[in-house]
């Protein structure tokens, strides 16, 4: 019964969305206040119905209702409860339901919270948001109904994949979706502005908190996915330039560019058309991500639930929304002319370079990801575009970007005094130079690019701290009061920039100075790595709740002194007929010592284990930096709530009704 109610709620939500997609925007055109105001009600009703539908599906998973096909295919009665719940969004249908739920929640949040936005703009925005809802809800109802029944019901579910039972994987998709879908509201704002034909600083100010919230979620989602691959999958890496990773990275890049260009639109009433374009592109790239992951258009290590037919439908949705909005842009945007002039050396110019480089980086990733498809279509030839291409094209674009990033906050609007700024940064330069030399000395002839990159990261750290210290006059009396008085968004900016530098340190360290070794091990075997000595003590069999594990004990010493013991495992899940590798890691800020064991592939290796050791220097700076990025965003967002007339009550994400 409950699944049917869920399905019914979904259908009602579609009706609400249909009403919302027509009435408010028509009201805005005819200046009918009542029609416009109806968007508030329909947006909230639509969200409530979808919350119910999602709850109904989750209920089916929690009670393991095996009359529902989706539960059969994606759950099992023996799964721990957390992963039963997470199974709700583990499948194509369920994740799509989550997708439209988040879409509706963002719409409802705008309806409820953004009470300072002019009614007409709000009505148009919510109508555009409802267009997207209508597209995806009808897609679900027609091709991917999560509430399909199965008869006769099987005794138990099919999916007990132990690899997918992980906390990181359970929360990574929802976060990523909040990011992806959060940009929908920015897209809707942009399309509404195009329809109205007006973009002004006020518009930019209304849009920025939503952009920021979506950007934070996307940042967190990507970082978590990367973290998951690193820790749980035991890939020993955190970024592979895989198509599925690239499609989550592109909206992040575009969203980052948008955050910055919206500042210029807000403060200086210029870059208008560009900001609008970025708002459209960011969400379009999110849609492209949804499409590529689900259609099987490109091959990927992450690909699952591949179905070309659904792909064609999603492609149709994409064509309507992306081409429609871009056509509108081509038609209306040329009329939007921007405000103030600025000198070649100014905050505006700095942000312009920032946008140019980020956009180039984003376009390059897009181009490299799709190039195999282009080539196959034109010549039939199949090639692979892998990490070498992306590293060779992405790094040269980002390094100058980071240099400008250090400089940018020091520049004043309109016209900046470059010699003055450089004089101010003189000592930072000296410190950075010394720091780089120290890095080069420690690295002892490592890759030159890594040393230079590290120097640039240090530059960003130094320049950002110097900028912050100068603004709050850190060394003078009353600094604490000044820190409190400063707008939080300014602190947020410094924090996020610092976060990026820290992230860079981690990325460089873990890719340039990583070392690994593999050897046969039997009790007593000692293997040196990165100054440690790892001794294989032995293996013990341990019975887990639904698996049997071979647990190895490893003694780690450095210069003869005991450091720690590590216990990597090899688990066999008899029911799921799967074997997993559970690595063990000694985590410190200096680096991770990452160990795993496996059965050797070679023959005649009775009693031997394959022992793999990796040392990843500085890798934890990656997660620390990502955290700082999110924190910076949060600081900024909390400021907007208090200081400007944007959403008044609460940060949008936190305030959405919790399911």
């Amino acid at each position, binding site marked *: 019964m409950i699944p049917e109610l869920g399905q019914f709620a979904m259908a009602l939500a579609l009706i609400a969305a249909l009403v919302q997609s027509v009435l408010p925007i028509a009201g805005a055109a005819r200046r009918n206040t009542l029609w416009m105001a109806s968007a508030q009600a329909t947006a909230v009703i639509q969200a409530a119905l979808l919350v119910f539908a999602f709850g109904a599906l989750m209920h089916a998973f929690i009670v393991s209702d095996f009359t529902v096909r989706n539960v059969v295919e994606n759950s099992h009665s023996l799964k721990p409860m957390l992963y039963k719940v997470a199974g709700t969004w583990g499948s194509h249908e369920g994740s799509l339901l989550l997708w439209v739920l988040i879409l509706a929640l963002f719409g409802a949040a705008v309806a409820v919270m953004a009470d300072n936005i002019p009614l007409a703009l709000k009505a148009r925005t919510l109508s555009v948001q409802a267009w997207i809802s209508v597209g995806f809800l009808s897609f679900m109802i027609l091709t991917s109904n999560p509430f399909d029944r199965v008869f006769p019901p099987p005794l138990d579910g099919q999916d007990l994949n132990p690899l997918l039972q992980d906390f990181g994987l359970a929360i990574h998709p929802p976060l990523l979706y909040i990011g992806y879908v959060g940009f929908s509201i920015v897209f809707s704002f942009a399309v509404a502005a195009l329809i109205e034909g007006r973009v002004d600083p006020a518009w930019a100010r209304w849009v920025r908190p939503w952009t920021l919230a979506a950007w934070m979620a996307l940042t967190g989602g990507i970082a978590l996915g990367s973290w998951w691959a690193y820790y749980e999958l035991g890939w020993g890496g955190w970024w592979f330039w895989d198509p599925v990773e690239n499609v989550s990275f592109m909206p992040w890049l575009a969203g980052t560019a948008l955050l910055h260009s919206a500042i210029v639109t807000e403060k200086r009433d210029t870059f208008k058309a560009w900001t609008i374009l970025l708002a459209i592109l960011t969400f379009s790239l999110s849609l492209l991500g949804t499409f590529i992951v689900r259609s*099987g258009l490109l*091959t990927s290590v992450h690909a699952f639930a591949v179905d070309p037919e659904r792909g064609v439908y999603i*492609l149709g949705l994409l064509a309507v929304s992306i*081409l429609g909005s871009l056509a509108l*842009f*081509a038609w209306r945007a040329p009329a939007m002319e921007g405000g103030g002039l600025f000198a070649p050396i100014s905050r505006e110019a700095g942000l312009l370079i920032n946008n140019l480089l980020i956009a180039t980086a984003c376009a390059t990733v897009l181009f490299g990801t799709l190039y195999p*498809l282009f080539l196959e279509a034109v010549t039939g030839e*199949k090639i692979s575009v892998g990490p070498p291409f992306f590293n060779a094209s992405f790094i040269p674009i980002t390094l100058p970007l980071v240099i400008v990033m250090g400089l940018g906050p020091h520049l004043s609007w309109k016209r900046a005094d470059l010699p003055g700024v450089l004089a101010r940064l003189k000592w930072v330069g000296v410190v950075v130079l010394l720091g780089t030399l120290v890095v080069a000395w420690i690295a002892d002839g490592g890759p030159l690019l890594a040393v230079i990159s590290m120097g640039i990261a240090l530059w960003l750290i130094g320049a950002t701290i110097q900028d912050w210290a100068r603004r709050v006059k850190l060394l003078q009396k009353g600094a604490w009061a000044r820190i409190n008085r400063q707008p939080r968004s300014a602190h947020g900016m410094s924090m996020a920039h610092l976060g990026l530098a820290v992230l860079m340190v981690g990325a460089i360290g873990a890719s340039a100075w990583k070392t690994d070794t593999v050897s046969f091990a039997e009790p007593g075997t000692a293997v040196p790595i990165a100054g440690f000595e790892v001794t294989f003590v032995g293996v013990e069999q341990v019975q887990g709740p639904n698996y049997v594990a071979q647990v190895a004990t490893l003694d780690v010493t450095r210069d003869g002194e005991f450091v720690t013991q590590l216990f990597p495992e090899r688990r066999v899940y008899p029911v799921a007929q799967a074997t997993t590798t559970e690595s063990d890691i000694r985590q410190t800020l200096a680096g991770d010592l990452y160990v795993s064991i496996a059965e050797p592939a070679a023959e005649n290796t009775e009693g031997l284990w394959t022992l793999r050791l990796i040392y990843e220097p500085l890798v934890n700076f990656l997660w620390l930096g990502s955290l700082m990025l999110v924190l910076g965003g949060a600081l900024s967002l909390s400021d907007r709530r208090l200081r400007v007339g944007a959403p008044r009550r609460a940060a949008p994400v936190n305030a959405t009704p919790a399911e």
Partner: protein
Amino acid sequence: MKRLLFAAPFVLALIIGGFSLWGLSGGRDPSSIPSALISQPIPDFALDPIEGVDTPGLSTEDLKGQGLTLVNVFASWCGPCRAEHPILTRMSEQQNLRIVGLNYKDTPENAAAWLEELGNPYERIGADVTGRAGIDWGVTGVPETFIISNDGIVLHRFPGPVVGDGQRRFQEALDAAKAAQ
């Protein structure tokens, strides 16, 4: 000129959309790998027969001047091979085709038992115990079937089992190869 600039994103999106539509249509398998050997002479290799099976071994010379030949890569541990085996046997009998086998990474006992059970349509079988010959042939998995011309040129590579729709597609390639002879 300025309008052109503003229309550029639309045009680019249209192009990407067009390619994506192409990518989704018509049975395209993004994970299939085209063979580098098509229209190339067959690789140099020489394999001993399977121990205990009295079918002779297989080498490069055995595939030249003997008419159109199918080279079937198979293994006893491979399930789909079992499915395609009767079909390939029937095809070779009915169409009077020469078929030879490449026994990929198998043990002699298992391979012999497998052939005993399912029948042996192969005129020659090379035992590729190490999988090296398979790599020379650009094999990515078993089963795979190659169509070789009379003068030892690789005309077609068919990855996966020759069953169902695969059988139809394989027959098409085979007919084309026959016509070209």
